[in-house]
């Protein structure tokens, strides 16, 4: 029996699906016609929610990148060790007949 090719969604596809789902849920609740509207306090919170989430994600991104930048390891010992290895290797190779 021929096997079906595995169809996996691309990351873009996953994002579009997710946004479509959340977007339609939000629109259904926040932009509903009078009569089907949820209570006023809920609507007041719901309407600006997408912008709030965007701003929150922006802040999270800045904080995360900033933190990771600040804690980026500087490998001083590795650099020093490397210089030592280079010195030792040069001496060893010269002994074995390498002409640089």
């Amino acid at each position: 029996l021929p096997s079906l090719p595995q169809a996996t969604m691309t990351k873009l596809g996953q994002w579009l699906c997710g946004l479509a789902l959340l977007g339609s849920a939000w629109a259904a609740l926040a932009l509903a016609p009078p009569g089907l509207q949820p209570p006023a306090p809920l609507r007041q919170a719901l309407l600006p929610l997408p912008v709030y989430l965007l701003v929150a994600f922006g802040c999270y991104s800045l904080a995360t990148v900033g933190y990771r930048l600040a804690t980026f390891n500087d490998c001083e010992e590795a650099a020093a060790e490397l210089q030592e290895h280079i010195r030792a290797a040069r001496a060893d190779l010269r002994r074995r007949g390498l002409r640089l």
Partner: protein
Amino acid sequence: SGIDFEIIIIDDGSPDGTQEIAEQLEKIYGSDKILLRPRPRKLGLGTAYIHGMKHATGNFIVIMDADLSHHVSLYFTYCGKQKEGNFDIVSGTRYKGSGGVHGWDLRRKLISRGANFLTQVLLRPGASDLTGSFRLYRKEVLQKLMEKCVSKGYVFQMEMIVRARQLGYTIGEVPISFVDRVYGESKLGGNEIVSFLKGLLTLFATT
């Protein structure tokens, strides 16, 4: 160390005397340990991998930069990690654990962290460092990945990991130190950034 190894040197006609040094090394250590497989001119990284694989006789292939930005002594750490989890791929990471860099200014570090953050958000790759090029692959895994990958440059390294995850290969990580500017300075200009973004978006839309 008990590990059977060979070193394959692929030089694309470097004008700095690399080939002569390589030939001397071959005389010193023997042509079963040092395999010279030069190419007439600069032909690109992907084809260099394929070229090297054709001549590799081992079960595992370690790919690394030859300008000492990758610490050769980490080689044993990679082998240990692979045995530990029987991983198909062991990838070096500069961003986790004791991994790090030396010789980068603030701008370079910021771009690196920013690009990696964007990559993690968009691709959720399951590996912390996608643009590193110090990796150990099982030989069959590397062959399979080479068939599937189409990008060039930085993006090629990223695509390898993304495709590997898609194909269900296991990936282990080892913290590595990237020591830049031992010989010469590696620059990160606007061109590289643009092509990285283009490649990232392409992978986002096609994988």
